[in-house]
């Protein structure tokens, strides 16, 4: 760096891998105004079309964007963000969907340009915003390793030296010469992640990519990420999986609607602030889609609600632990797909995931009907299962083993709490330690006979 004359203090504060200064990113969004809807005559329509056409031509000639609709709105995905990432730092970036996390990563990976501000980056950056970018279905596993490696910035000799390791990590030895279009989705994801996992950059930028694949493989991926971080490389990690963030990261950056942001030196603190940051004035037990939130090609959720099945419980008050809890999801299926899954993710207030539950968990005969049109789904969380405490339910949806439609961390969530009544018997009136507090039935069994004891010990 700049030599011996620089003072120690400046050396320290200059020891950054990434410095973000007043970064902003603006998008233009167009709307159709209501004005036009009232006029139906041919002449009015023609006049309007002509005006729009003239404006499009003018914009095109002037090299400006053409925006559909006649009202143009600015949307700041990021506004005035500044922070430093130190060398060797493992920084978790958390926030709700739409908080600007992905935009930030796209700017850092040079995929898109900021509207204002500046980023200084020191070191070779590899970014992993998706697993299997550029995979071609017609090409074989072997060919795709070569292709994907090059796309992610590996040199040919790097790919050659790491080839065997990649194949071993992905567990696809037998199918190396099969086109990947014949791979199972699990194999596909494993191969894709394996290539990415063998990148060797100084700065690694990772978007939510660990959320794919089965649990076993996710564990392996997380382990691999941990290795990279321990190697002293700088890692930026975006995730909705608070457990992964807590395990991997040393600091946490909390983004909120592209603006309010806090850097937390204490990861736990950061996670808690994120989980409690969502008081936007609505009742906690019901979420109603204001419009097109979470929309995708398959499913538009409209309402998520949680309620106690106990009579006379105000949903705004804590639920008793005994009665089962009813979760309802309604929405519009826009396109049917045999792999379409809708479900919920249940978290503790610390962000610990308790479980996911999907419409296709049960035997196929018991799956709900998911044909195109309006649907209303409901499910029951058994009573006497959760301990006293505060809980968070998110609506999630995916195409089974393919990709998320609505990822965890979504804005479609509800909160509820449970107080009291965690036991049936009158003997217990204090809450238990632990996340769950199931009531198990205990029976006494006849005492073992001498003969069977003898068999065990011999």
């Amino acid at each position, binding site marked *: 760096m700049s030599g011996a004359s620089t003072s120690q203090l400046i050396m320290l504060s200059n020891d950054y891998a990434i410095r973000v200064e007043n970064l902003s990113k603006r998008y233009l969004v167009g709307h159709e105004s209501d004005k036009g809807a009232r006029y139906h005559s041919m002449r009015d329509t023609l006049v309007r079309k002509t005006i729009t056409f003239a404006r499009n031509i003018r914009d095109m000639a002037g090299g400006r964007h053409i925006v559909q609709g006649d009202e143009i709105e600015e949307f700041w995905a990021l506004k005035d963000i500044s922070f430093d990432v130190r060398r060797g730092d493992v920084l978790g970036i958390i926030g709700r969907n739409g908080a600007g996390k992905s935009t930030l990563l796209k700017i850092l990976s040079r995929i898109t340009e900021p509207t204002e501000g500046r980023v200084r980056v020191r070191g070779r950056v590899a*970014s992993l915003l998706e697993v299997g970018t550029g995979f071609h279905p017609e*090409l074989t596993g072997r060919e795709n390793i070569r292709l994907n490696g090059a796309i992610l910035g590996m040199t040919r000799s790097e790919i050659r030296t790491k080839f065997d390791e990649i194949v071993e990590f992905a567990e696809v030895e037998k199918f190396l010469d099969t086109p990947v279009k014949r791979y199972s989705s699990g194999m596909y994801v494993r191969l894709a992640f394996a290539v990415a996992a063998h990148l060797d950059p100084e700065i690694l930028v990772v978007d939510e990519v660990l959320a794919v694949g089965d649990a076993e493989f996710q564990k392996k991926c997380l382990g691999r990420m941990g290795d990279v971080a321990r190697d002293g490389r700088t890692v930026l990690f975006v995730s909705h999986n608070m457990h992964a963030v807590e395990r991997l990261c040393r600091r946490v950056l909390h983004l909120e609607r592209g603006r309010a942001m806090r850097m937390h030196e204490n990861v736990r603190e950061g996670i808690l602030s994120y989980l409690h940051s969502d008081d936007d004035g609505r009742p906690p037990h019901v979420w109603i889609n204001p419009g097109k939130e979470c929309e995708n090609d398959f499913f538009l959720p409209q309402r998520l609600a949680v309620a106690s099945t106990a009579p006379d419980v105000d949903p705004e008050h804590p639920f008793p632990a005994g009665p089962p809890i009813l979760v309802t999801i309604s929405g519009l299926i826009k396109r049917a797909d045999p792999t379409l899954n809708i479900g919920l993710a249940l978290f503790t207030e610390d962000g610990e995931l308790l479980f996911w539950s999907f419409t296709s968990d049960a035997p196929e005969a018991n799956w709900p009907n998911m044909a195109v049109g309006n649907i209303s789904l409901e499910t029951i969380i058994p009573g006497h299962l959760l301990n006293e405490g505060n809980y968070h339910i998110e609506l999630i949806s995916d195409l089974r083993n393919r990709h998320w439609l609505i990822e965890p961390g979504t804005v479609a969530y509800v909160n509820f709490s449970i107080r009291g009544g965690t036991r049936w018997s009158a003997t217990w009136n204090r809450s238990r330690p632990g996340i769950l507090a199931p009531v198990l039935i205990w029976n006494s069994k006849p005492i073992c006979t001498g003969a069977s004891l003898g068999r065990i010990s011999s």
Partner: protein
Amino acid sequence: MWDDTELIIEPGRVDRDYWRELWRYRELFQVLAWRDVSVRYKQTVIGVLWALIRPFLTMVVFTVIFGKIARLPSEGGAPYALLVFTGMLPWTFFSSALTEAAGSIVSNATLIGKVYFPRLIVPAATVVVAFLDFIISFAILVAMMIWYRFVPSWQILLLPAVIIIAVAASLGPGLWITTLNVRYRDFRYVIPFIVQLGLYVSPVGFSSSVVPDQWRLLYSLNPLVGVIDGFRWCILGGQSQIYLPGFTLSISVVTLLLWIGVRQFRRMEKTFADLI
């Protein structure tokens, strides 16, 4: 060990190292070109033969229409079929390179949205596919020359230079159109139109010497006139006369279009990911 160079990302920044950066990514260029080539020949029954059949049949039809029915003159003593084919080859290369390059950014949208690399690599790599077809159809030309016992002279040594001009001629408009195509999808309709019309306004089925002298210079504003004339001159040698003012004009148009294409592309490439 630690890379001390600092990369600065800010709006509207002009990359001083643009071309060096492009060179650094040459391996990705090779890999993308290889991908396009291997995908193209997978799942086709007769594969490479397509690159032979198409220009050959077109050549037969053009020879019959322009040579036998319209009785247009050839250049010098060269057989008419040879004249047509020497126009067919650079034309087919131009039209397929232009078509591929023009659609390349939109058809690689997922790549552009998820990974950084100099975007110029994508349209450039597609030209390689067209070039491979060109090499394959070149075999027909060689076979025809043997059939007609036609011996080329020293001019054939300049063929690589003409090929470079042909690449430039297709890449210039290709880059421009692919840039426009990202913002205004209407431009994908422009390409079939250019290709269809271009076949008749370029000297593919006939020699450019049939154009009256007073119109010759104007005709050379079509960059393909220079490319095809140059190609014929290299192959047919002494049989073909090159019209120098026209050739120079065509080359200037090619250079201008390439300059505009690269300039527009560079101006827009940083916003591709937002628009796709």
